[in-house]
């Protein structure tokens, strides 16, 4: 999100694998995926079934548009605030209907991907890397949505809310850090 946005992590397996690794090495993007998955898990089976398809599609679209932008989008502050909002919705156990949650998830994925795409524009192998990241996103969201699909026992429902609370807390601290150390 700050410095790591500007470069890929060299895995030695080419840009495709670098892009896949990027999802796990970029806390902002990984937390967005986890936050949206948690929200979908709380919302019900319909969202769990649709999110793993919607998320990669929105992400790849946003990334492709981002690659065409002339300069890097510096949206760390609003992106962190939105991440905190996703975590807060999970922590408060707000069960959004699919008609609200799915467009929200698509919009967030699109925005974050725009930022990622604009950061990688001009980087050799950027397209392959972003596609690799899209595939990793699809795999992670599918694994989590399917293996943790509702109905939830009480302890797991609590675990989901704790996860949301952690995301919000991390985002709050990050917001303060961004204000103290502006980009």
């Amino acid at each position, binding site marked *: *999100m*700050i*410095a*790591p946005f500007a470069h890929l*992590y060299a895995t030695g397996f080419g840009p495709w694998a670098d892009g896949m690794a990027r999802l*796990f*090495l*970029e*806390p*902002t993007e*990984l*937390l967005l995926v*986890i936050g949206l998955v948690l929200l979908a898990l709380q919302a019900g*089976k319909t969202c769990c079934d649709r999110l793993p398809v919607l998320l990669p599609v929105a992400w790849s679209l946003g990334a492709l548009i981002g690659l065409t932008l002339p300069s890097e989008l510096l949206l760390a502050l609003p992106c*962190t605030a939105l991440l905190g909002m996703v975590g*807060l919705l999970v*922590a408060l156990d707000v069960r959004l209907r699919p008609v609200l949650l799915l467009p929200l998830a698509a919009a967030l994925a699109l925005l974050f991907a725009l930022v990622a795409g604009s950061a990688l524009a001009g980087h050799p192998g950027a397209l392959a890397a972003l596609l690799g990241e899209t595939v990793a996103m699809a795999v*992670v969201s599918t*694994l*989590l949505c*399917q*293996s*943790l*699909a*509702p*109905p939830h026992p009480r302890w797991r429902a*609590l675990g989901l*809310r*704790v996860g*949301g*609370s*952690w*995301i*919000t*807390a*991390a*985002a*709050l*601290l*990050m*917001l*303060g*850090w*961004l*204000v*103290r*150390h502006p980009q």
Partner: protein
Amino acid sequence: MARTNWPWTLLACVALALAPMAAWAHADPHPGGGFVAGLLHPISGLDHVVAMVAVGLWGAVLDPPALWVLPVAFPMVMAFGGLLGLLGIPIPGVEIGIAASGLVMGLMVLFELKPPLWLAALIVAAFAVFHGHAHGAELPAGSNALLYSLAFVIATGLLHLLGILLGETRRWPGGRRFVQGAVGVVALIGLLFLEQALR
């Protein structure tokens, strides 16, 4: 009913847990900023450790709904305190508040006091702000601040969990005595820190 595939879940959790460490190794040359540094920070101060364990212990003694309200609400309130610290908004008596938290919550558990949920939440929230403020002010400059923050929150949550698990031993024979002994130590450490803070 959906079938739960535990091996895959476990594999995903392990991968997610290990990934940020790799990020720390690759992305951030600054030793202060990163997942491991954030994970270690809360356990580097005994005052924070005993207070967080005491929060979990008190939650266990209070039983539901406090038991599940606590781990959800505490990290967010603590992070709010951290935000205030990062923004440079001063809170008077932070060190005294931190030291008092271990003592007060230790005594609450020792005497098995069960105030109304709103009052318990208010006490814990006040202490959470003190702890968050102190740690927020210490958040280091580095490129992996989000990883650091996340790890810090996770470590704090795990300390709560430890407290809750210790508190649940009350259900076993002799467990109540064990918990009383543990919180006695917590209160004593809190008292020592309070004495130092008041000097």
